[in-house]
């Protein structure tokens, strides 16, 4: 499997948490907006957090000391304290709201930016099976960050502030004892890195086990017919139990590490307290501090310890959140392999010439990865405008590569692809602005993906702004008027998720209409291989005839009838064009085409040539 292989080029970088944060902050300018006010509020909040317990302490010491309280003094002190408490609460509230707003705004911006960028990455269409992990980068990874900000981030931020304030106040009381407390916490500070590593490792195992459980559950759901047909329910149950058990044990192990990390702060705090008592008394005897100072200091140590514990609690979540953050940033940092010249180099950008477009390959080679064999090897050819060309060849011969290069889904490793005509001139594809290219060159992929919307909306995707009536006219022109009117709601019929309410053939009809309204000058068709019922097949053939009429058409042909009807057939083998000519010329000539043809005839078991064609 390719699970541990990096998905994107940028994934391979080794980077510390702080480097990730810096990189992230650079990419999220929204984050810095209004930060001074938020920080001012945070200051009030942290100060309040320290002042409130001290104020309460003061009321007890000053107002109640000696057994004869002074009610008026107590009243005044209590009211003052209540004011501080309320002020602090309000400051925390305002700070929280501001922080949530800025972080959510920044994260939404990051999410949208990453989404846009993914569409530029070739991994999206080259490695279809890895789309899921790209989706998770703009969904769960960002969600995790957002959850962390809402639950742990604010807490962590205040804790750090409280830590600083407590330290300053402690130093004000006694620098010697402050030093002592800090020294006690030094080993913890050093150990934090180690703890973080242990935590990360423990939770990495948990995540892996979660994946196993997911896989096992998926088997029991997706494989339900197989499990039943073979009566292997018990075996599947045993596998599920094993995966669930392993996940449980990993969770318990991780919990042990988490608990150990959490209590280490508690332990160090006790050591610090004990040390302060012992050293404090000794200092006191030396006349350095008073008894009151020492008692107050013991109280302050607890204010110092609490945020340390909180921080260790937040640490683990922070690790996960930062790992997710890194994955999102890596998406944005990955250079697209095909760039829009209008963006990359606006100075030299060109438009495609008006009129019909031909295709020219000039010594074009392509390989999918460095070191991989060439998928296309030094191909040179010219296809005249308005020709209908069928490209045939075995699986892996390079015919799909051909289509991807013409539509500039990829760029050749060597040579150039040009579009145009002898009359209007030839323009190198990599100098054509995407806006110009996409409006003139349209590809109908093998799986003509449909969105979960109506037929009209799916067709409109090819030309935004069309009315339903115009869409209906387009179907009429393609000879599909009767078909579309026969549907429950005509062009307003919803197609369901991925078009699943329609049959595979009907989905192709909609995809053809979508390409038709886009009105391209060059059409690249990747023919579907799936079987289609005869009625739909006839409609599709007619619609394709109308669609391709008068346009330069490159069809990656899987059907013999397509090759037969084409003006010209290109036979691709081993990354080279090995034969070129009409069907009639090639079928009797020596070469692979005769073999392909014979193979087709074998599969139809010697039946007469199909009637359609």
């Amino acid at each position: 499997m390719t699970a541990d292989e990096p998905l994107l080029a940028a994934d391979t970088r080794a980077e510390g948490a702080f480097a990730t944060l810096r990189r992230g902050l650079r990419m999220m300018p929204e984050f810095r907006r209004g930060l001074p006010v938020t920080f001012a509020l945070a200051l009030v909040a942290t100060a309040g957090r320290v002042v409130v317990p001290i104020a309460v302490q003061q009321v007890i010491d000053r107002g109640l000391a000696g057994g004869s309280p002074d009610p008026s003094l107590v009243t005044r002190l209590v009211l003052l304290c209540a004011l501080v408490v309320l002020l602090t609460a309000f400051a925390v509230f305002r700070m929280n709201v501001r922080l949530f707003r800025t972080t959510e705004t920044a994260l939404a911006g990051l999410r949208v930016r990453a989404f846009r960028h993914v569409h530029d990455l070739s991994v999206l269409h080259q490695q279809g099976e890895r789309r899921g992990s790209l989706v998770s980068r703009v969904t769960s990874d960002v969600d995790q960050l957002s959850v962390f900000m809402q639950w742990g981030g604010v807490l962590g931020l205040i804790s750090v502030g409280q830590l600083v304030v407590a330290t300053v106040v402690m130093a004000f009381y006694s620098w010697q004892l402050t030093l002592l407390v800090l020294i006690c916490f030094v080993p913890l500070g050093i150990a934090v890195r180690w703890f973080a590593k242990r935590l990360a490792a423990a939770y990495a195992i948990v995540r892996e086990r979660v994946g196993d459980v997911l896989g096992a559950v998926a088997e029991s759901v997706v494989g339900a017919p197989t499990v039943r047909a073979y009566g292997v329910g018990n075996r599947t149950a045993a596998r599920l139990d094993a995966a669930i058990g392993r996940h449980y044990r990993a969770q318990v192990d991780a919990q042990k590490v988490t608990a150990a990390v959490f209590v280490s702060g508690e332990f160090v705090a006790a050591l610090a307290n004990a040390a302060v008592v012992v050293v404090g008394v000794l200092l006191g005897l030396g006349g350095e501090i008073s008894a009151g100072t020492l008692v107050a200091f013991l109280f302050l140590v607890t204010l110092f310890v609490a945020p340390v514990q909180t921080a260790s609690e937040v640490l683990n979540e922070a690790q996960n959140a930062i790992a997710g953050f890194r994955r999102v940033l890596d998406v944005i940092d990955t250079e697209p392999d095909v760039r829009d010249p209008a963006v990359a180099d606006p100075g030299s950008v060109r438009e495609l010439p008006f009129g019909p477009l031909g295709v020219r390959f000039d010594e074009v080679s392509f390989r999918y990865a460095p070191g991989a064999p060439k998928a296309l090897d030094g191909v040179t050819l010219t296809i005249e405008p308005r020709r209908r060309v069928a490209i045939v060849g075995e699986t892996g011969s390079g015919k799909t590569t051909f289509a991807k290069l013409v539509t500039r889904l990829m760029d050749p490793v060597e040579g150039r692809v040009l579009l145009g005509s002898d009359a209007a001139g030839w323009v190198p594809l990599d100098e054509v602005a995407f806006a110009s290219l996409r409006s003139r060159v349209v590809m109908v992929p093998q799986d003509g993906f449909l969105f979960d919307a109506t037929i009209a909306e799916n067709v409109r995707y090819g030309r935004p702004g069309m009315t339903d009536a115009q869409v209906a006219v387009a179907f009429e022109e393609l000879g599909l008027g009767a078909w579309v009117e026969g549907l429950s709601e005509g062009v307003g019929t919803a197609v369901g998720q991925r078009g699943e309410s329609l049959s595979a053939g009907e989905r192709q009809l909609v995809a053809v209409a979508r390409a038709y309204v886009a009105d391209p000058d060059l059409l690249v068709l990747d023919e579907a291989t799936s079987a289609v019922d005869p009625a739909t097949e006839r409609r599709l053939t007619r619609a394709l005839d109308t669609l391709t009429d008068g346009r330069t058409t490159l069809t990656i042909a899987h059907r013999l009838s397509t090759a037969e009807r084409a003006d010209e057939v290109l036979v691709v083998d081993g990354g080279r064009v090995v034969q070129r000519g009409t069907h009639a010329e090639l079928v009797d000539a020596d070469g692979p085409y005769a073999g392909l043809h014979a193979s087709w005839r074998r599969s139809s078991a010697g039946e007469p040539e199909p009637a359609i064609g």
Partner: protein
Amino acid sequence: MTPRRDAVVRRGLRHVWRGIVEQPGMFTLAVLASSLYGAMTVASAWVIGEITDRVLLPSFADGATTAAALSLAAAAIVAVALLKIVGILGRRLFAGIMSYRLQADYRRRVTRQYLRLPLSWHQRHPTGQLLSNANSDVEASWFFVAPLPFAVGALVMIAITVVALFLTDPLIALVGLVVFPAVFAVNVFYSQVMSPRMQRAQQLRAEVSEIAHESFDAALVVKTLGREESETDRFRARAEELRDSLVAVGRVRGLFDPLMEALPSLGTLAVLLIGAARVADGSTAAGELVSIAYLFTLLALPIRAIGWVLADLPRALAGFDRVTPVLEATGETPYGSERAPAGTGGAAVGVEDVGFAFDGSTRPTLDGVTFDVPAGRTVAIVGPTGSGKSTLAGLLVRLVDPSDGHVLLDGVDLRRLREGEVSDRVAFVAQGTFLFDDTVRGNVTLGADIGDDEVWAALRVAAAAGFVPALPEGLDTRVGERGATLSGGQRQRLALARAIVRRPRLLVLDDATSAVDPSVESRILDALRSSDDPVTVVVVAYRQATIALADEVVWLEHGQVLARGTHDQLLAEVPGYAALVRAYSQAEVAA
């Protein structure tokens, strides 16, 4: 408070009780550990007080101290801290184990149901939903358990505090009676205001994810039509809705946190205000007042644990509400008590007047289907899309039961056979090949005791003996999740070998060779038919070459058998059949 909100709290508490009842041991241990933690929290304050009175102040007063006194003080602090640590460790570990055990347990129960419930139940539920029922929904159901013992410990501490307050001074106790219910009320209010907002955020998260999935799946269409920007706009609109809903969640949470921190502080101050007057008129001693004030501050954290549990309950209930229907679903496949007639080689298949309708569908998928397949013969089922071919194939292997009529194996209705009888004799290869995340061998044997020789023999018949040795570890190569490392044709051939290795008496192939080269497919079928004691084969087929190999063809249209006969007969006599078969041939890969 509306009745609906009221119900959330009541149902929530019942759900909490369910968790406690299912894991009483771990729960008790965790509560005990929490109590130890609580006691030691109080003790740590008491120790500091004692040290101040007995060690610090005398030392400063006398200007001298003893090593013994100092080390005793230090030892006391550390000892209490160690006990507290034991309490924390116990609480976290036991509460964790309790939560994880509940999760694991419910996952087992849910997946048992998946394996037990009939296929018709599976067909009614989307895959994604079943996956999240077993995973995230179960997790959400028991997530609140982690802070539960802490919260229960807090309740005990509050009860003790209130009693102590009344014993000390009933008037001061009234403060406690105001503050603690207020804290509780704020918590309840919070969870109620929060839960619809959280649900909305969760819903929007799912929608954002759906758009991303759809848009990325549509990558080729988006790119080749140059619609990246409009897709981004579509995504942005939903992402911004999510952002707004998360800010709304944050606003509530942002208010709740400082409120929960301020309430105990205000309570302490109220205690002091009233207490000062009571001390002045001599009703209460100053020392008692100080300890009460201190108790209030100590309770602030544990009270928040109650809030954590309450805040998570709506999510837990929502998750559990999705899990419950799976656990309560009924509809087991009933098995009979008979054994199938003994025998080797092919089994005779009878389909008598079979009808089948999917739940909720008015039109039957199959209607009065009757045909038989004599032992050892090969029958092809041919028909246009939606004619009911796959349903018929599923009936033959008893993935589903017919609504009307009978399916017979060697003359016995499948429903009268005991469990395991059908799967021992009948092998089925489905349209979408399914491989387990296991080795090649494991996928062929499915854990049955089958020797490598037999595995290889089956691989040879399935035309898989060519590529398996070329895999990195031969038979021991793991094929990845659902066979992801193999090509479609390779997966199909392994699935065929899995069927063949069992030496079934009936083999049902539902378009199981679509990704295999036609000539290879013919070889496979020939091998199956040409043995001395041939297996009965029912094949749902598209290719002419496959169909032509069958002894007989059953022509299915709109769920009915419209014609039967040899391929040549049907070609000559049934116009629809001829048109369809030719259209499929046309659709064949030219390459």
